Each structure stands twice: as structure tokens, then as C-alpha cells.
């Protein structure tokens, strides 16, 4: 499946901002056997005095930009064409929970996709006893990781209500868990923290969802903005498996990956530091359209 994706993020400041620096992670990555970035570009307004594009530790595209001059609004746009393949579906290879610790310990690499980075606490995911307890009900020692992940995915979808008004981008895990409601970021965080509390490596996926569903299928939650889901390490053979707790499904052809991290803080679309005094408002619009190459050609 090939998609054309457009993303527009605007910021408006009550008091003009100066010396703004942003780290922007919105351009999808190429992942062998999963998706391919055919073309993609970012543009900024005002035009940054400085811009450096790098690839971060987890393999994500990052643009580091600086807008020094005073500005009362800024615009970040991304346009890309991405080819998505059905994820190589080998969940049956995932190991039982009882074997995971050993598989992790003998995985002798610290590369960005090694499981070691995705266990224990991370900046946005401290250990929360309530979440630990919640996770326990989905696990059995002999259950394969894939089964546990699917059960937890379904459990979160069942127990938590999708509500864009109750949480914010910086709502702590503990609070979102108590509210039993939130958005894709909250659900993903709860599932990641839950899996990690069982000793299963789990990470955060930032990405896009197809906006208009295929004929006869329902529109997925989270398609009107950037989306988030979870990846789970099922052992050396199964590797990483992706689940979307917001829509209770495995991530498939409708999920386009922008980047991977331990939690939101590693793949936040825009991290910004600037000098300003007042409030600011931000808006995001996303358009993900399948390209019918047959008709185009």
C-alpha cells in the first residue's frame, strides 16, 4: 500500500517568541520488510536560521531547527510518500514469558532496536504499582508474549474510554490510568508500562493512520492527528510485534511508522525550547491518502 501523507503543525504565541529551537520528529522512517520512505520533505515558516537533519539513536529522522528572530506564529509542514507492507506476521514464534528474561540477557547488542532499552522505567514511564497490578491479570508464565500482548491490548480497549478532552500531552501515566480514559498516547503508555512490569520489552511507536477507511470498514480512532501504538519484543525469533490498543488490533497496512522510542518523550513530534512569556496554542492537521498507482498510471 502506498500513501501520500501531509502533516501541518502550527504554533501561535500571545507574545512573540525568540530564540526558538525545535527537535522535530515527523518524517517516517524506512524499515526493512515493513515500510519504505519513497520521498519526503519538511518545510518551516519562518525559515530557520539553522537546520540540521540527523538520525537519532533509535533510527528516527530528526530535524534540529532554530528560529532566532521574534515570531508570533510558526508553521511546520511535512509531505511524504510511503510504501507500507503488511508486517511480516510471525507472532507464533514469540516466546513464553518465562523464557524472555534469558532471551534478553543473551541478546548481546546495544543497537537502537535491542530489547535492553525497552525494559524498566523511562522518562515518561515510572513504575506505577496500579499499572503493575493491572498487567498481572493478563499474564501467565507459560503464555507466549504475543498472547499476553493481545490480551492486554483488548483489556485496555475494553476498560478505557477514548476521550480527547480528559488528558493532555503531559498527563502522567498514573493519572491517565486512574481516569480510565484518554487518547492513543495514554493507552500506549499504559500498555508499555504494563508489559515492562512483566519483564517484556515494549516501546512507543509514533505514526499515522489512514484517514478514510477502506470501503465497508469503520474509520479508525486517531486518524485526524498523529497516532501512537505499541511495539512488543517477542524474543529473538519473533522480534518486534506492533499492537494498537486504541483500536484493539495489530498494527497493519493502515499504520505508517514515523519513529520508535521508549515512550512519548523519545519521539515527540516537536520538542521546543523558546523565550516567550505568554500562552501558546498549537494545531495539527493530518491527511493520509492511499495512492492508487493503477489509476494514476
Amino acid at each position, binding site marked *: 500500500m502506498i500513501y501520500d501523507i501531509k502533516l501541518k503543525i502550527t504554533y501561535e504565541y500571545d507574545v512573540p517568541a525568540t530564540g526558538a529551537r525545535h527537535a522535530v520528529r515527523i518524517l517516517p522512517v524506512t524499515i526493512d520488510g515493513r515500510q519504505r520512505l519513497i520521498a519526503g520533505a519538511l518545510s518551516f515558516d519562518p525559515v530557520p536560521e539553522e537546520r540540521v537533519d540527523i538520525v537519532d539513536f533509535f533510527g528516527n529522522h530528526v530535524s534540529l531547527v532554530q528560529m532566532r528572530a521574534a515570531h508570533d506564529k510558526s508553521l511546520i509542514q511535512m509531505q511524504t510518500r510511503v510504501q507500507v507492507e503488511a508486517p511480516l506476521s510471525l507472532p507464533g514464534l514469540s516466546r513464553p514469558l518465562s523464557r524472555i528474561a534469558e532471551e534478553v540477557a543473551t541478546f*548481546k547488542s*546495544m543497537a537502537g532496536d535491542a530489547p535492553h*532499552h525497552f525494559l524498566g522505567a523511562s522518562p515518561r514511564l515510572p513504575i506505577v504499582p496500579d499499572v503493575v497490578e493491572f498487567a498481572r491479570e493478563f499474564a501467565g508464565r507459560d503464555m507466549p508474549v504475543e498472547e499476553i500482548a493481545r490480551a492486554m491490548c483488548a483489556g485496555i480497549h475494553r476498560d478505557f474510554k477514548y476521550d480527547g478532552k480528559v488528558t493532555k500531552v503531559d498527563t502522567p501515566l498514573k493519572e491517565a490510568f486512574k481516569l480510565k480514559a484518554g487518547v492513543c498516547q495514554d493507552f500506549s503508555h499504559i500498555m508499555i508500562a504494563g508489559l515492562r512490569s512483566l519483564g517484556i520489552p515494549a516501546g512507543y511507536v509514533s505514526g499515522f493512520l489512514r484517514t478514510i477507511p477502506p470501503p465497508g470498514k469503520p474509520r479508525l480512532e486517531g486518524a485526524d492527528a498523529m497516532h501512537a501504538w505499541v511495539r512488543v519484543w517477542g524474543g529473538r525469533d519473533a522480534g518486534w510485534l506492533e499492537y494498537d490498543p486504541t483500536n484493539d488490533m495489530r498494527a497493519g497496512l493502515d499504520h505508517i511508522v514515523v519513529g520508535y522510542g521508549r515512550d512519548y518523550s523519545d519521539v515527540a513530534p516537536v520538542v521546543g525550547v523558546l523565550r516567550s512569556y505568554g500562552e501558546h496554542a498549537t494545531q495539527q492537521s493530518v491527511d493520509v491518502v492511499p495512492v492508487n498507482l493503477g489509476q494514476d498510471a
Partner: protein
Amino acid sequence: MADLLGKDAGGALTDPLLGYQPLPGVADEMVDPSGKVRPVWQKLLSYLGKQDENGLEDRFNRADRYLKDAGVFYRSYGGPGSVERDWPLSHVPVLISDEEWNRISDGLIQRVELLEAIAADIYGENTLVRDGVLPPALIGANAEFLRPLVGVKPAGGHYLHFCSFEIGRGPDGNWWVLSDRTQAPSGAGFALENRVATARAFSDLYADMHVHRLASFFGAFRETLLARRQSPVERVAVLTPGPANETYYEHAYIARYLGFMLLEGEDLAVVDGRVMVRTVSGLKPIGVLWRRLDASYADPLELNQNSYIGTPGMVQALRQGSVTMVNALGTGILETRALLAFLPRISAHLKNEPLNMPSIATWWCGQEAERAYVASNIDGMVIGPAYSRLPFFDDKGQSVLGATLREQAKETVIGWLKAEGARLAGQEAVTLSTTPVWHEGKLVPRPMSLRVFAARTLDGWTIMPGGFARISSGADALAIAMQAGGKSADVWVVSEGPVERPTLLPRENDFTRNMPGSLPSRAADNLYWLGRYIERAEGTIRILRAWHARYAELADAETPLLADLTAYLKALDIAIEPAVPDSLLANIESALFSASNIRDRFSPDGWLALVDLAKTARDFNERIKAGEDAARAMTVLLRKLAGFAGLVHENMYRFTGWRFLTIGRLLERGLHMTRLLGHMSGDDPPDGSWDLLLDIGDSVMTHRRRYNVATAGVTVTDLLALDALNPRSIMFQLDAIKSEVEALPNAYRDGQMSPLYREAVRLHSMMAVKTPEEMNAAIYNELEQEMETLSNVLSQTYLA
């Protein structure tokens, strides 16, 4: 004092040990296992034996007085807020022969080179994980593993430049490393201060014993940091988290001692991948940062996003290799407690050699066999967090000593090991050696550990010949007992023959000479406001003194003159009760706060004068009564203020910083007089107003001499507003402001006056042509506003 330990009534020594009794089964620094005094201690011991007790106390007081006068303190946290505490010095130094010291040095140099190799491996190829030498979990779950730094080669190629080690001597007489400090080791400045203080206490002995000096260690490191710059225009700076940090005093001290700038994250900006300091003359490049800030706070963009004390873009600057960071961001991971368990294997793997100086025995409980060992030997173990970067005796009670647990608690700990082994490490509960401490009139043994410092110089690593000893407050020699309070002592490395005597006199080089224009904007801001607060306090005190002097005569606060002045003060938010009002206290505290942000630019005398002023004001605030008592108290405060001003005036180098302080004072004094004159120039001031004003303006005598007439509005206005020779007049301030502003950087740009200079000149001209007769409330009002504008333009131009 005939009976000082071990002397008989005739004063003859009966006991060469002066009654000192080492603890049984514990190694002692002064007394060897056979009970004999070690040769290196003999001189000190016989010297102590010759002193009477009063003489010794005098010597110790001399050391304490030095530390107090130098303003040495550390900040201690606990309870609400934080307190500055005097530095606790144990006066008797710890003596070590240079032969033994060389062995320690060799062991530590080997160790620091190993640590460098480990840093390079963790942030590079990761062969230690690949080859199974280091468990990946120790890196992956480690908060000090800073992923954005992976693959970033440090400028100049080195990760480590300055490290410290906590070492202790075990019962068998050998030294062990208790912990490694690689993040931002503190204490080197305190070691220097301990040395100065202890050398004062024992000045004759110090000169007589061949003690290795510390200055050449700092000198070599200073030269090295200067040499690490990529261009001579770059500056070297100490990067501090700020005055709230517990060792801020030391940051300021080291910066001042070495002649480096003391900067906070906010002082820095990254432009095109280069680190720059914001100064009053624009952005200036920084070549080397000696970091005293934990790495994760260094960049809110790529590291801890909640950091308010970092510099956005710092990581990118490091990626571009434009600045040398001492030590590299991410090297804090080397302090991880559980890493100690793997050092012998890592040394064999990376260096193919055994460690010359062992670490304290450590087991990471993430491994089955190690966990079982720790559990079954729990009585001889200290168990604590595996990822802790603090030594077990310093981790605020996070570690437990197995031997002190009851059976049930032991079971709990063993269960804890099973459930969360990977997060725990066991360490041998070692007994440390003791060293003599002067306690209640005699020498007693107290357990100690040493902090030793290593610096990378142009000729390789070097170890400071000395350091500081941490001495436990109790007699319990188990290392974990170190956490309860304690003192520090100087460490003398003693040679048999004479030693080199270098000093750290300023050297001929472009950096120390190149100070012009390098004043950081934040420091300038603090100096400017220090000047304003000090002068505001003075103005307030002068008015209050005049008020109370008259109240003492009239005994009625409702007379028109006093009521009018009370109303004037009220409009400025100054109450007349208590006699030393809270707003005046707040004002002095603000001055103190501004000064605390720039401790490195001050003489300790200036600082102490200010601290004393604040203390006195607080004391007066609580007890002084209105009238005569208060007038006298105000005079005391004025004298103390003058003392501070005098110290600044006498001792502060006449450069940009001084100008900002001065402009602050001039402007505030101008405002003070303008407001007063404006008030008096209203309709019908109460009787005695002009005399009162002369009194406040300290110009009674001058007025009498200059004008052969009774006090009148015109003569007072002439003297206090327009007379350019009267240091209290408005005109005098404007005159001086004009010349100070003219001397600031960029007063002229491309041959044109800067907006600030233009403003200063305009104000000056406006007043220069005035006659006393035409002065009125409206003009004073306009003048007051113009002065505030001048202040704003100054802030925008230099202080933003």
C-alpha cells in the same frame, strides 16, 4: 597545662603516643600493626606533644578563622529550605608517605585509563556487551546512559579529564577503591581550602615537613584546559547549576582560583553548533566547559526535557565537536555501583592486565550465582541499588547493612533479592582504617576514607598529591557508618627530601589578559541590581534616620513634618513600624541574593561585609525602638553599608562589572534625590522640610558654608539638584552615569552613539542648563521617568 596526655608533672613525655589508642583489629594511619608510630607521623606527633592545650586550641582557631574569613561554606539540605554551613575541618592532617602515595597514584592512573576505555566502548563499539563481558542491562536500564551521545566522539578524543576516587584502607593495610566519581567530581576546591587552613594552624611544622604542594596540580590542569581550546579567542568556563547547588561555593572558588569564567546554562547560547557566552559585548565563543552540572540537565532539547538549567543545542555542539566538555556528557554511567563488580574482567578484556588497586568487593544481583552468594553471606554485606551513582556510605540510607537486620528482615531482603535482583548490588561490609582526630582535648582514632583527584594534563594523567579525608563522627569503623555527619581533614603527602614549591601566580597568556568585554550578561545584571539595592537601602536608611532623629526631639509622629515624611515613605512601601522596617530588610536580602549569584566576582571580604549587614538589620528589625534608639541603629547600618561600599570601591577591578554596579548605584541615588525634591517642591511643604532634606542629603555643612542665607527652597535645590560637585546631587549622578556609560562596550557603534549613551547624554544636557528657580514638581517627575527609561534601555542593551 602540665598534664596534656602522656606527660608527667614535669612535662616530660611519658607516652610517645600521647595516649592515642587505635581500635583493636582495625588498621590505623598513624600506628602500625605492631603498635609503633609510622615514621611519617613522628614529627607531627612530637610537635603535638610539645604544645600545651591552649596553644593547640589557638592554632586550631587560626584555621577555623581562615575558613570563616574566606567564607568557605557548603549548602546543606534537609528540613525546609537549605542552609549554608561552615566547612567542618578536622585539624589534624592525615599523613601519607610519598612512597605509599606513588603506589596509590599508579593504581588510580591505571584505573582512570580503564574508565576512559569503558566510556569509549559504551558510547562507541560496545564490544564489552558484544563479547559478554558486561551485562547489557547495566547499560540499557541505566539513567546515565545518554542515548543522544552514542557515537558522538568528544572534541580532542577524550571522555574523561577530571575524576575523583573515594578510597579506603582495609584491615590488611591495602587500599581499596570505594567509588569512582566521573560525572562532575566535587571537592578539589575544598581540598585547597583545607590545605590553606591546616597550613595556617601548623605553619612552622608545615614549612619544616616536606609536604607536597597542590598548586602545580591545578596549574597543570589549568594549562591543559587552556590548550584544549581550538582557538585563542575562545574562553574556558566552569559550568555551574547555580547558587542553590550544595557545592556552589566551590565552583565559584575554583573559577576564581584558575581565572575561568563561572557560567550557568542560561549564560550560554548555541549558534551554528558553537557554544557562545552572552556577554555585555555580544556573543563570545567558549572552547572548554568544566561541567559541574549533571549531564542530563545540560540540554533540554535532547536530554532531560524538564531541565531549566541547561542550554538548548548543547548536544548538537558536542556532535559537531566544537567544544570540549570536562567530562563528556554521559560519563556518569561509569559511577554505577554494580559496574565495580565487572572492572576486573573488563580490565583483563580491554587492557589485558589486572587492576593494581582493587575495588571494594561487589556483586551484581542480576546474576543467579552472585545473587545466591550475596543472600547466603548477607551478614557481611551492604545491599543497595545497583544503579546508584553514590557510594553506599553516602546514599542517604538507601543501602542496608545485613549484619544489623533481624532474622525476619533478612528474609525480606532475600526475597527482595529474588524479585528484583537486577536492581540490587551487594558489597562487602568493609572496615576502614582510622586516623587521629583531636577530640575533647586528646587524640582519638576515627574511621576515614580519602578523596583523591586525577586530572588529565598534556603529559597524561596526574594525581593531586593530597586531597581530602572524610572522617566519621563516630568510632564505628564500618564504612557504612561514614554517612552520619563527619568532618574533613587535609591530606599531607610527605617526602623525605625537599619538595618543589610552585605557586599559581597569574601567567603570561592571552586568556587572563583578555578579560575585556567578557562579562556575562547575567553577571552584569546581578551587579547592576546589587548596586541599585544597596543604594536603595542607603536612601531608605537616611530618610528613616532623619525621621527618628526628629521624632526623638518632638516625640509626636503627627507633627506636619513627620506626618508628611511618613506619607512619603508609605508611598514607597516603607512602613514606619517596626523601626527597621520589613521592606528595608527585603531590600538588603535582595542585594544579598544578587551578590550570591556572582560570588566569583567578589572578594570574600565584600561578601562577608554584606552578610554582616543583613544579619545586623535582621537583629535590629526584631528589637529596635522608635526614636533615639532607631536613629542610632540607622547610623550603625549606614556605617556597615559604607564598609561594604568601601571594600567594593577599594578592591574591585575597574572593569565592566564595576561599571554596571556603579551605574546601578548612581541611578538609584539620582532617583532617590529626584523623588525627594519632587515631593518637597509641591505646594507648601511643612516647616522644616528643606532642613530635613539637607540632613537626608548629608549636606548640612556644605549648605552652611556655601550659602550665607537661611535654608530655602532655592539654595537647597541648587545644592541637591544642580551642583555637579556635590556627590549627593542629581547632577553629580547624571554626570557620572554619562562617563560610565561612555566607557561601556559599544557606546559608539559605527561612529554613532548607542541608544543608551544617547539617552544618558540627553538626560545630562536636560539638567545641565536648568536654574534652581525653574525646577518644579513636573520637571522632577519627568526626570524620574527618564531615569527609569535609561534603566530599561540599559537592560535591553546589555543585560538581556
